[in-house]
């Protein structure tokens, strides 16, 4: 799965931060809501504070006026008994108050209510003070006991419930994330394929289907544009042919016209030669563009590459190769009978480009070796020479720098010919690879390695 760890760490950090923020927000909201109540509940009139304050203000003789006033204003009643439970005095107490509290009464009241009033008790030196708060002002826990065992388990419980909660949250996050990734992955893959200029068609269901459809549309538009571009190049190269034929034809005629001045004949010769160069360029351009946009239909047929190489070499020698060049054929016995399913014209074209490169770069002559070898998996076709070779920088440049057609760099030193580029494209169209090796003064060797499909 595509860089899943990265997604997890990045989004998980945000997710955790969000949970923490939420947690603190909850505490703040809780504090804000309950601040008043808490301050009141634990303020001056709370049972504990009131009892503390009254402890010194009451005795068997009664209560100070000041304290009585405060109790009245807070709507609290008071009862004072001696140590035997006999009521000594009362303050605003309800009428249900008995004259004498029994031990049972005290036991109930100390934990609970008296006539529905929550009651709070404080023992003094000579008796007991009982404060009755208004009905429904406090609730008392009448069964406030827990086993020590349960209390001991509380920290463990809290920690495990937190861990459990986080695990659940993480899983929920993980699955939702995975679902998104699962849907986005084909889309990302196809966008990457688009970058490489391959036509794509992606199908995704769910909320991302709209994105997938857009990507498909882009691909369609791109391939239409590629088609248009290839057609355009093909059209231009087609239209240029007839006029170029005329230019070359007449220039050639003038060059061979005996009644014409020698200088003019020479110039006409140059026009014809340059015309031939334009012709090659136009043909190359058309082929490159069709290979580039994968519109060159491969006319594959099983052939013997050994025969192809011999026939090419014979043709090369028959058309009159200068004596400073020699051509050697090396075909291993195993390669002699091997069958290669290929487009014969294109393979022949690739060999020709390599041989012509050797000839062009070695004007003083060289020995060219055409070698065919094969293993169980590969068919290897090597064109090598013992010529001037290529410098290391130039070799690096040839290997790394894209051809100028693919490059946006305008510097002319990057513009090596279409020749090697065509060889590479033809090789790749046959699922092969090209290896270029060379060193200054020790020749150049280009090896084309094709799969041997038997």
């Amino acid at each position, binding site marked *: 799965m595509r860089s899943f760890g990265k997604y997890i760490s990045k989004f998980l950090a945000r997710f955790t931060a969000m949970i923490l923020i939420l947690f603190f927000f909850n505490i703040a909201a809780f504090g804000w809501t309950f601040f008043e109540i808490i301050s009141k509940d634990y303020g001056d009139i709370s049972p504990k504070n009131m009892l503390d304050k009254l402890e010194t203000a009451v005795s068997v003789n009664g209560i100070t006026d000041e304290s009585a006033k405060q109790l009245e204003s807070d709507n609290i009643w008071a009862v004072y008994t001696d140590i035997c439970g006999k009521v000594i005095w009362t303050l605003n107490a309800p009428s249900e108050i008995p004259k004498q509290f029994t031990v049972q009464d005290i036991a109930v009241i100390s934990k609970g209510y008296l006539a529905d009033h929550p009651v709070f008790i404080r023992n003094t030196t000579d008796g007991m003070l009982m404060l009755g708060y208004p009905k429904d002002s406090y609730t008392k826990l009448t069964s406030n006991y827990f086993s020590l065992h349960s209390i001991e388990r509380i920290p463990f419980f809290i920690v495990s419930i937190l861990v459990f909660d986080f695990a659940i949250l993480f899983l929920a996050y993980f699955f939702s994330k995975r679902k998104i990734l699962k849907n986005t992955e084909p889309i990302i893959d196809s966008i990457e394929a688009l970058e490489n200029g391959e036509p794509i068609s992606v199908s995704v269901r769910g909320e991302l289907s709209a994105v997938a459809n857009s990507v498909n549309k882009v691909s369609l538009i791109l391939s239409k544009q590629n088609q248009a571009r290839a057609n355009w190049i093909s059209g231009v190269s*087609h*239209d*240029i*042919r*007839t006029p*170029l*034929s*005329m*230019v*070359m*034809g*007449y220039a*050639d*005629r003038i060059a*061979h016209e005996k009644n014409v001045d020698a200088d003019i004949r020479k110039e006409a010769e140059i026009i*014809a030669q340059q*015309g*031939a160069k*334009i*012709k090659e360029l136009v*043909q190359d351009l*058309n*082929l490159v563009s*069709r290979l580039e946009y994968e519109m*060159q*239909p491969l*006319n594959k047929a099983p052939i*013997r590459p*050994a*025969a192809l190489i*011999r*026939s090419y*070499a*014979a043709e090369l*020698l*028959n058309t009159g190769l200068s004596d400073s060049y020699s051509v*050697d*054929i*090396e*075909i291993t016995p195993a390669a002699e*009978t091997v069958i290669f399913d290929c*487009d014969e*014209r294109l393979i022949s074209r690739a060999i020709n480009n390599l041989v012509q490169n050797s000839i062009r770069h070695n004007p003083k002559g060289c020995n060219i070796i055409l070698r065919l070898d094969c293993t169980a998996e590969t068919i290897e076709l090597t064109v090598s020479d013992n010529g001037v070779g290529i410098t290391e920088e130039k070799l690096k440049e040839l290997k790394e720098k894209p051809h100028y057609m693919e490059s946006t760099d305008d510097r002319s030193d990057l513009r090596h010919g279409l020749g090697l580029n065509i060889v590479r494209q033809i090789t790749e169209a046959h699922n092969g690879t090209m290896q270029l090796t060379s060193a200054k003064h020790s020749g150049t060797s280009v090896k084309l390695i094709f799969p041997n499909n038997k």
Partner: protein
Amino acid sequence: MDNSFLHTKKLLLVDDEPELLKMVSSTLSDNGFENIITAASVKDAIDAVQDKKPDLTVLDVMLPDGDGFYLMQKIRCITDIPVIFLTAKDEGNDKLAGLGLGADDYISKPFLPQELVLRIYAVLRRCYKEDSPMINLESSMIDFSRAEVHKDGEIIPLTAMEMTILETLAHNEGRIVTVDVLCERLWGSNPFGYGNSLNAHIRRIREKIEKDASYPVSLITIKGLGYKLITRK
């Protein structure tokens, strides 16, 4: 190579570009061709084939009233003359279509007129053999009509296989013919493993035509490729 015996052949050029027709026909006449006729459409071309009976025709693929392939089929209904296609498309399919229909050669625009001239010679030579089927070699003479070699006043007969080899080499005299082509000519389309047999035939031919078969000067080996026949004018 002497091609002058071909100059009397009548050539029909078909192209919709009058300028191109003019250029090609003047180049051809510069090269010695005496009978050149031109046509600019399918209809004119068919009329010309019927009325003037050319010996070879050069066809453009794209014509105003039809394409060259259609025209070739029409011509083939009338006569069996060789056809060379001239076209502004250079890639695969056209070539296959052209040769599949039985075209004899194919040349793509733009072309050097000399290239066309050479192709026309080659096709004419192939289709209209020289009237005298004799070939002079360094130390002998081959009479193809009788399948014989004349050497030192002696007459040596040639076998069918040897004739096939020599005819193939003689058609391409001065040019290398690969072992693959020779084997295919002798043993058909799947010529694997006949290398040794071919060697044996070549050796026997040399014994018949060379002064010293160990040092051949007429039928020479091109290492790794094939053989070449050197003739003497």
